[in-house]
């Protein structure tokens, strides 16, 4: 999966032959010294907290005093309660609003930018990436101003066209689409770049042959481009699924999870356990989310791989 976008390089490392000599001891010790700083940090801030979360998820703990072992209590509390499922449902709706649109637009734009006839290709590539490189918090702020119901630029434009105001961030109907739009705006350029790299790995002679056979452009897109970029598309799909279900900063800044909890995403709900110091439940929630997202990713991989036959 990663091979489609990673820099092309041999994965297999051949063992360096030990040829003896004075430097042999020095050479044997060197790699340990080199990886030690990384390993120490990785163990302290990666592996240890991971194991700690797993243990924590089976306890009830509010950040001080002794943790009480509750077995599967946190998991059953979450799975049987409404709030967890509501947060997952909010994220699922956002996923539906974002991912299909993003992959479609991303693919169309990538195909256009891959065509030699389109001018200013490198300009577009840079312009579309501007939202992606700008700080999320800053653009989320701009979103709150632009989509403000009374004073925002969007409603002003609607009024100028004789259309009524829309409560973009104040009604539970519109809050999700408005957040989805922010996410689409922020990350679609990135998806374009990923898909473009997939397209560029397709040999031009394939199109040449198809073109000579009289296949139309649409036909070429459907029968050549799509199957050949499927791996890249799958990669983008999994990447964005992970990102949407972890979405946190967007609702945190723009809507604080409201109105009426309609934008309390899975990621924000998880964070809310921390602010309530309900750490055991938060840990269990992390693992449920991870399991769900991993299962979903595996499902996508399965579904799209099976079509290969």
């Amino acid at each position, binding site marked *: 999966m990663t091979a489609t*976008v*990673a*820099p092309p*390089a041999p994965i297999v*490392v051949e063992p360096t032959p030990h040829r003896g000599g004075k430097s042999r001891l*020095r050479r044997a010790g*060197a790699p*340990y010294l080199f*990886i030690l700083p*990384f*390993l120490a*940090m*990785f163990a302290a*801030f*990666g*592996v240890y*907290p*991971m194991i*700690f*979360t797993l243990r924590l998820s089976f306890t009830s703990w509010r950040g001080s005093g002794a943790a009480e072992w509750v077995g599967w209590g946190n998991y059953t509390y979450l799975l049987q309660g409404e709030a967890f499922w509501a947060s997952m449902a909010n994220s699922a709706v956002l996923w539906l609003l974002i991912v299909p649109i993003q992959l479609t637009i991303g693919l169309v734009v990538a195909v*256009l930018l891959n*065509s030699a*006839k*389109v*001018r200013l290709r490198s300009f*577009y590539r840079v*312009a*579309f*990436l*501007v*939202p992606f*490189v*700008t*700080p999320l*918090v*800053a*653009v989320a*702020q*701009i*979103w709150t101003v632009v989509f403000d119901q009374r*004073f925002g*630029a969007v409603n*002003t434009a609607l009024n100028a066209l004789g259309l009524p105001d829309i409560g973009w961030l104040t009604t539970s109907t519109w809050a999700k689409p408005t957040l989805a739009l922010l996410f689409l705006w922020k990350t679609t350029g990135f998806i374009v*770049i*990923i898909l473009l790299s997939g397209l560029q790995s397709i040999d*031009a002679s*394939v199109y040449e*042959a198809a*073109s*000579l056979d009289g296949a139309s452009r649409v036909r070429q897109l459907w029968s050549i481009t799509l199957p050949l970029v499927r791996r890249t598309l799958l990669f983008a799909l999994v*990447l964005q699924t992970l990102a949407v*279900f*972890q979405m946190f900063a967007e609702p945190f*800044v723009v809507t*604080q999870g409201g109105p009426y909890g309609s934008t309390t995403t899975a990621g924000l709900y*998880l*964070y809310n356990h921390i602010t309530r110091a309900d750490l055991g439940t*938060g840990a269990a929630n992390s693992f449920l*989310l*991870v399991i769900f997202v991993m299962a979903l990713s595996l499902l996508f991989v399965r579904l799209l791989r099976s079509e290969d036959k």
Partner: protein
Amino acid sequence: MTTTALPTTRRRPVISRRPLGATVGVQVFLVLLTLAFLSPVVWALVSAFKPAASIISAPLAFDPSALTLENYTRMFADVPIGRGFMNTAVVLVIKGSVTLFFAPLAAYGFAKYDFPFKNLLFGTVLITLMLPTIVLIIPLLLEMKALGWVNTYQALILPGAVDAFAVFWMRQVIAAVPDELVDAARVDGCSEIGIFTRIVLPVIRPAMAGLAVLTVMNIYNDFVWPVVVASSSRMATLQVVLSTLAQNITGNRIDADYATVTGELLAAASIALIPLLVIFILLQRHFINGILAGSVKG
């Protein structure tokens, strides 16, 4: 794919026989999309120079004669944005340097040496790359509490400083460096660390540039970890300062204040956007390489 040779249409086959109308339509589509992608940023950058009252009374109007710096001066007076910039700069310099030295160093160890348990170690690193980062937030926060590091630079800098992804990427890059180059340096009497600093690092400079811009972008834009671990006004990074500004706005929906706060907000957002925008435009090629490689992270 049988090729029945038609010599007349052989040249430029990818784009052959496209009607002119389609090309014009494509350009219009791309221009509109560019406007959609750029307009919120441009609008914010321009509006920050408008009088606060007219930002909300006439958000789409633009009067060049009425431009003002009042939003900026007020924002600098009201918001500890200088402090935020300084904290971000400290974290950026130290964390960035640590990543850019120790990640390729570890990658070199993994790529060019053989030692027991190497594959097991590297496999463990790969597995953790696939796990969403949010799983780590709660235990890391507790760890910081236990160490007494909440609201300190250590907490902002150390977790994630030697990013597992950076090691993974650099290992791929360094594995492609010819072994002969490394061996020749060794024969010439170069020390093991000297081989790394004087041979490997210069050779992989393009990838290092990609890693550098990606690292700068990630550290500068990082929000979730800083807001959890360093939310005090003294330690808040630029992004955290910005985010609390937003909450002030929604807390103060009184009309009179709203204009002022909006003006300040746009000024603060603009000033936070500009450094990265400039770096991006200057170093776009490295940025795109870095983003492409970085997308493996998930």
